[in-house]
């Protein structure tokens, strides 16, 4: 391989995500039984209005009332996930309450963390705005002035509760992801902290993406950030989410909540490159409601975590609304990546496409679990699902479990899936051209996911490819 690639590998190793920082907390909730008192403490530390505390307490009651999900066919093992064993809330020791808008104002170890992750550099070059969350709180938040002038709001979620109570009251865990949706959504509703609030006024196009980066540093903690995006009629925005944590022996829990409101004729793209450490349980709820002629796009790369259960969903509520899902999952040793998509077609002439690519090796398991629901009356709707899986060995598992519920006859529904191994002939061909076995396989994997990476912004395509190279190296060496 070229020296340039060797260089990339040396400088960009797993260590980029692996470093740990000393744990300096200004306030941390004790682990143990999750009761009203803990919730009140968190809410008080955040100086929240009464209505938000009420919502948290209601969600907590729902969390306690709901059983753990254990009866999904072949679902990941969650028996280790004991909520009482995690620290639900850590406020890092940052001088200023809320977030700063200058990296240099942050404590050195936090600044250094995000430097290593390359966030300030990306902000300079390619982003309209950046938010950075460390443990439970957003520590940095900034957006270029020209967007502010147009009325775009990009702030941390806690701040939005204080500054934009009407918008938050109306949209926060009400119609999109109510706490009753699932046990971990209820948990999230009770102890959520941090995350982003994005508001794009009517007709405004935010040309460069805005990004949020979530970093868990402490052992045994849970991160529960909430992201709320409201795109008004005819607006356009691309939100990028990155996440990582160093590896610990005890489990960490990430249970975020994402709610997206796509207005009439608006366009929202939500891209995620998930690289949680391999002791993290990633149990997220992400959902969008799409009004007429609106477009929602979910682009997800799932590389990290011990177990992921994540099914970004879109409710196509308005006539002519469109959904696109693009997902890549990579499961290596000890990983169980159970991910997919859910789309509800609730209006006529709605359209969805789902493309999923998964790779499993060294005993890892990937599963595409997806649901397409076309309601009675959603005339002339169409959906197309394509799942392709690549397997490296017979220790690994690759499952595909789509569900289709079609209540309307004037529809066009198609689902296709394939599973196969890396072609020996392809590897042989590339070897005969002078590549070694590892490089040949890497090249084949890169080709396999190319239809998806070419849809990503270039920085993310590069990042995803690098992560996959790292994953491949881990065991091919």
């Amino acid at each position: 391989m070229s020296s340039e690639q060797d260089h990339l590998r040396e400088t960009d190793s797993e260590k980029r995500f692996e470093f740990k920082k000393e744990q300096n907390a200004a306030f941390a909730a004790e682990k143990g039984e999750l009761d009203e008192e803990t919730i009140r403490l968190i809410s008080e530390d955040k100086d929240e209005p009464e209505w938000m505390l009420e919502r948290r307490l209601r969600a907590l009651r729902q969390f306690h009332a709901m059983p753990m999900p254990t009866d999904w066919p072949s679902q990941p093992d969650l028996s280790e996930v004991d909520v009482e064993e995690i620290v639900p809330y850590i406020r890092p020791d940052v001088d200023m309450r809320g977030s700063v808008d200058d990296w240099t104002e942050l404590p050195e170890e936090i600044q250094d963390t995000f430097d290593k992750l390359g966030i300030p550099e990306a902000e300079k070059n390619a982003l309209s705005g950046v938010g950075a969350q460390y443990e439970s709180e957003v520590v940095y938040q900034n957006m270029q002035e020209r967007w502010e002038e147009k009325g775009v709001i990009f702030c941390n979620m806690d701040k939005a509760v204080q500054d934009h109570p009407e918008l938050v009251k109306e949209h926060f865990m009400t119609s999109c992801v109510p706490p009753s949706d699932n046990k971990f959504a209820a948990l999230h509703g009770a102890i959520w902290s941090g995350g982003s609030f994005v508001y794009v006024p009517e007709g405004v196009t935010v040309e460069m993406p805005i990004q949020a980066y979530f970093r868990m540093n402490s052992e045994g903690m849970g991160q529960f950030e909430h992201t709320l995006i409201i795109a008004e009629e005819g607006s356009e925005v691309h939100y990028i989410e990155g996440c990582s944590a160093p590896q610990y022996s005890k489990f960490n829990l990430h249970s975020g909540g994402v709610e997206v409101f796509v207005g009439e004729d608006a366009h929202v793209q939500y891209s995620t490159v998930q690289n949680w450490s391999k002791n993290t349980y990633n149990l997220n709820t992400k959902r969008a409601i799409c009004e007429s002629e609106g477009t929602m796009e979910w682009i997800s790369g799932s590389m990290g975590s011990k177990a992921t259960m994540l099914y970004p969903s879109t409710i196509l509520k308005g006539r002519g609304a469109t959904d696109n899902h693009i997902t890549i999952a990579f499961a290596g040793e000890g990983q169980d990546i159970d991910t997919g998509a859910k789309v509800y077609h609730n209006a006529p002439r709605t359209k969805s496409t789902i493309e999923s690519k998964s790779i499993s090796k060294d005993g890892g398991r990937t599963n595409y679990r997806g649901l397409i629901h076309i309601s009675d009356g959603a005339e002339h709707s169409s959906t197309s699902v394509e799942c392709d899986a690549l397997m490296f060995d017979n220790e690994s598992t690759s499952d595909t479990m789509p569900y289709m519920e079609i209540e309307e006859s004037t529809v066009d529904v198609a689902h296709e899936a394939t599973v196969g191994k890396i072609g020996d002939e392809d590897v042989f061909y590339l070897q005969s051209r002078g590549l070694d076995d590892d490089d040949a396989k890497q090249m084949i994997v890169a080709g396999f996911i190319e239809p998806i990476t070419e849809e990503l912004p270039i920085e993310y395509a590069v990042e995803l490819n690098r992560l996959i190279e790292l994953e491949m190296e881990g065991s091919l060496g």
Partner: protein
Amino acid sequence: MSAQLHANLTEAQVREISESLDEPEWLLETRLDALDALDELEMPDVIRTPGRNWTNLYDLDFAGFVDPLNAAEEKDQVGPDEVEVMSITEALDEREELVREKFGSVIDPTENYLTALSTALFSTGTVVYVPDGVDAEDVTVRTRMNSRSLFNYTLVVAGESSSVTILERQTTGEDVEGERYYSGLVEIDADENSNVQYGSLQNVDQETYTYSLKRGHADTYGTIDWIEGNLGSRLTKSSVETRLLGEGAESQIVGAFFGHDDQHFDVASRVWHEAEHTTADLVTRGVLDDEARSVYEGVQDVGSEAWNTNSYQRENTLMLSDESEADASPKLIINNHDTEASHSATVGQVDQQDLFYMTSRGVSPRAARNMLVEGFFVPVLDEIAVEEFRDDLDDLVAARLRE
């Protein structure tokens, strides 16, 4: 769940059935064990998604339509001389050792509530024994159900390098007031290099609920091909399954259904690849009219020892009415990378352009639609090697279209 039935189901009834068939002690024991197990057993799995059960078996009133002691039927069990086609009573008389060895070896009687119920209460059955090397066609089993409930059992044992084609039909005869229940278990044991083709055509009346589980074990280079046609019944829960246990074993499962009125079909095709070089092909096509509803599940399970597997699945549903509903879930469960597997599923309506073309040529809309529906079934009919079966299915489809 089970309590509702137990009220009118007793050990004495099971003993009476067993005695009337002059059964050996071991079979009575098996029945009583199945009866005992009912309390602990669950209904067969149905697919659930958030907020929805695709088929609800728990609300069925089994107590209302199970009448164990009054089973009545007309049965034809015929086949060529070189094959032994026996009623269960004859089989226990002439080939008790064989039946004892194979009974329950493919389907565990206590696999679920309905298999146990069927085992405890079956009053009629067929055993087909094909000796080594025998090549036979046209074994026919016709069952016409004349009572409120009927529990049927079928065992096929195909010896080494034998070949057999079996066609089974279920219909209902005399009218019975109210709802009825038909339950059928089919076990196939296909020895090395044997070839079993098993076709089943279910066309019972629309007051009848049916449960059917058909499963085969295919040994080395053995082939089991299933054809499953469902047209009748109020509600059908059916699964057709093959375990490919021997190297090079193959299975094809061809399914067709046509639902109308408020019929509900819950049909499944499942295959387990458990040895090297095995091949499976699952093809199902279904049409729904009126308020009919279909649930389809297809499972291709490739075990970690199943090197060099080929496995394919296609499912297509055509909706003729806006009131109908089609649910589908084709699943791949792959534990060996040396696999070529794919599945696809589609749901749609009659192609509007085709319809337009035909009506522009002077064909009435109704006739055009009927021709397109018949055409839709052609890829499935083409997979059926037995001409008689193909014609029967074709006729039933045509008759339903012209109702």
